[in-house]
């Protein structure tokens, strides 16, 4: 359920490192808790962000929830497809439902994030 090879943030975002680039999305757990996603407020391409910062918001039929970035850098791309199809976040949270790509200024930040096993344990702990 929780893909290997990604790094996970306590606020339920995942990143996939591709060299200096981090692809960021929200986890299956997050999309399930949010319910049907109807809109995403995305940052502008080119904006500098710091780790821990709120970079956007997800609107679902239940709630509005911030999206945080666990890494610092510059927004290189946003997933334009989500403008027409926000439901991709629900349908394919680790794939076509990615949210932004960030050019990391300090790739070592990713090391402090959880791996799949740790995130699984984190979810379990939260559930108890």
């Amino acid at each position, binding site marked *: 359920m929780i893909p290997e090879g990604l790094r996970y943030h306590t606020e339920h975002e995942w990143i996939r490192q591709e060299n200096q680039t981090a692809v960021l999305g929200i986890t299956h757990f997050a999309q399930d808790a949010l319910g049907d996603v109807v809109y995403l407020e995305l940052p502008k391409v080119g904006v500098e962000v710091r780790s821990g910062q709120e970079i956007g918001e997800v609107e679902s*039929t*239940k*709630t*509005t*929830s911030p999206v945080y970035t666990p890494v610092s850098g510059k927004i290189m791309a946003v997933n334009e497809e989500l403008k027409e199809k926000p439901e991709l976040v629900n349908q394919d949270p680790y794939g076509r439902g990615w949210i932004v790509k960030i050019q990391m200024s300090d790739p070592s930040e990713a090391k402090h994030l959880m791996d799949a096993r740790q995130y699984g344990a984190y979810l379990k702990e939260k559930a108890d």
Partner: protein
Amino acid sequence: MGPSPRIAVIGAGPGGYVAAIRAAQLGARVSLVEEQEVGGTCLNKGCIPSKALIFNAEVVELLKRAEEFGVRVISEPTYDVTRMLERKQRIVQTQVRGIHALLKSWGVALIKGRGRLIGPRAVEVADAGGTVQRVETDRVILATGSKPIKPPIFPFDGDRVITSEEALEPRVLPKSLLIVGAGVEGCEFGFLYQALGVSVTMVEMKNRPLATEDEEISSLVQREMNKRGIKLHLAVRVEKAAIESTQVVVTLSDGQTIAVDRILVSIGRRMNTEGLGLEEAGVVLGKRGEILVDDRMETRAPGVYAIGDAVGRIMLAHVASAEGKIAAANAVAGDRGHSMNYAIVPAGIFTLPEIGTVGLKEWEAVEQGLKIRIGRYPFRALGRAHTMDEIVGMVKVITEQESDRILGVHILGPHASDMIHEAAIAMRLGAKVSDIAEMIHAHPTLPEAMMEAAEDVHGSAIHLTRRKGPPPPAGRAGDGRQGP
């Protein structure tokens, strides 16, 4: 003065005709002078026609989503602009006839023509044919209204460069429209035209749309603009606008140029106070051309009152009407004092979805150094909103920390302009937030959101998950908590 004073009212908009009827109810003999049609800007070129058109947009938007409701629409809904405009005109005509009937029933004499003061005790009326008549009177109420500001940098031609008046008569819809000014009027037109299928760009000097509204309302509106694809340029000015063959080319202060089919200039309104013999009669004008009045709505010329947009206080139809009633009471009673109170003025803004607002905005409360609490409730947490599929927006309640009194309420969402009146009456009665929170609200209804927001002021909304830590700081739209 005898038992039945004569009162002349100049201007039959929502200020003037209301003042005329009230004065007649109080026993005066009333003449009402109007150059154009009764109902004024509001009825003929403003509130009513624009709301008629916005309702068209709502109908089509609903039809476009019909499938979601399990309703089959056989073909894609489209607009018939001619029929839309006819419908709008019929609505206006019905209201105009209604006002005529009211005036007649109260014995108000309607005089068609342009009125001007001849000293403080006479009004001269010139009709379109050039016939002039003189109306002797004991008191005058000036209700001459306002008109759109038309700065010279814009080449107004009534076709490609227009104001709100022409924007309500779009015989042919442009493909693209640029709106200068993201105030109330500009935003309403922005949502309307975008819903009609026009590509809309808005340009605003300030750093947010609806810049005088509560900051969270602005950010919610901005998000709805993003969702709909309304392009918004903030903190820029228009430097130049030129008609070039079939397009209007607009140059912004940040160097960008934008070419569109039509531009709508919506940057405010100017008082109609020129050429009315005001100064000669002893009426004093302020710097903006507004008629200076006291709280009793009397000008510096004793016996001459003024109301509505012409006094330039709060340019809203319902404020003009309220001022009209005060002016009428004072004008008929002579020196007995009825004063205008502007503390509680509910207002609606007819964006999609709409806005209802009353009292202090958060930024105003902060500016006044008040210690406040804020409660919020999102419509997406409300069952009734889901049944209507109208889940965008929220109710925001601002209270004074010490007294728990309600300072302001701001709503963006379905029927917000209707819902706001619960808050307005509560404030008028000096209610504490617990009065709304503890009042039983019918289920399932939209005003339950008001109750929940009131409860949320103290973190005790039933249908919101528990707050993490202290109440959320001011200035955030939604705080990530969930409804049921």
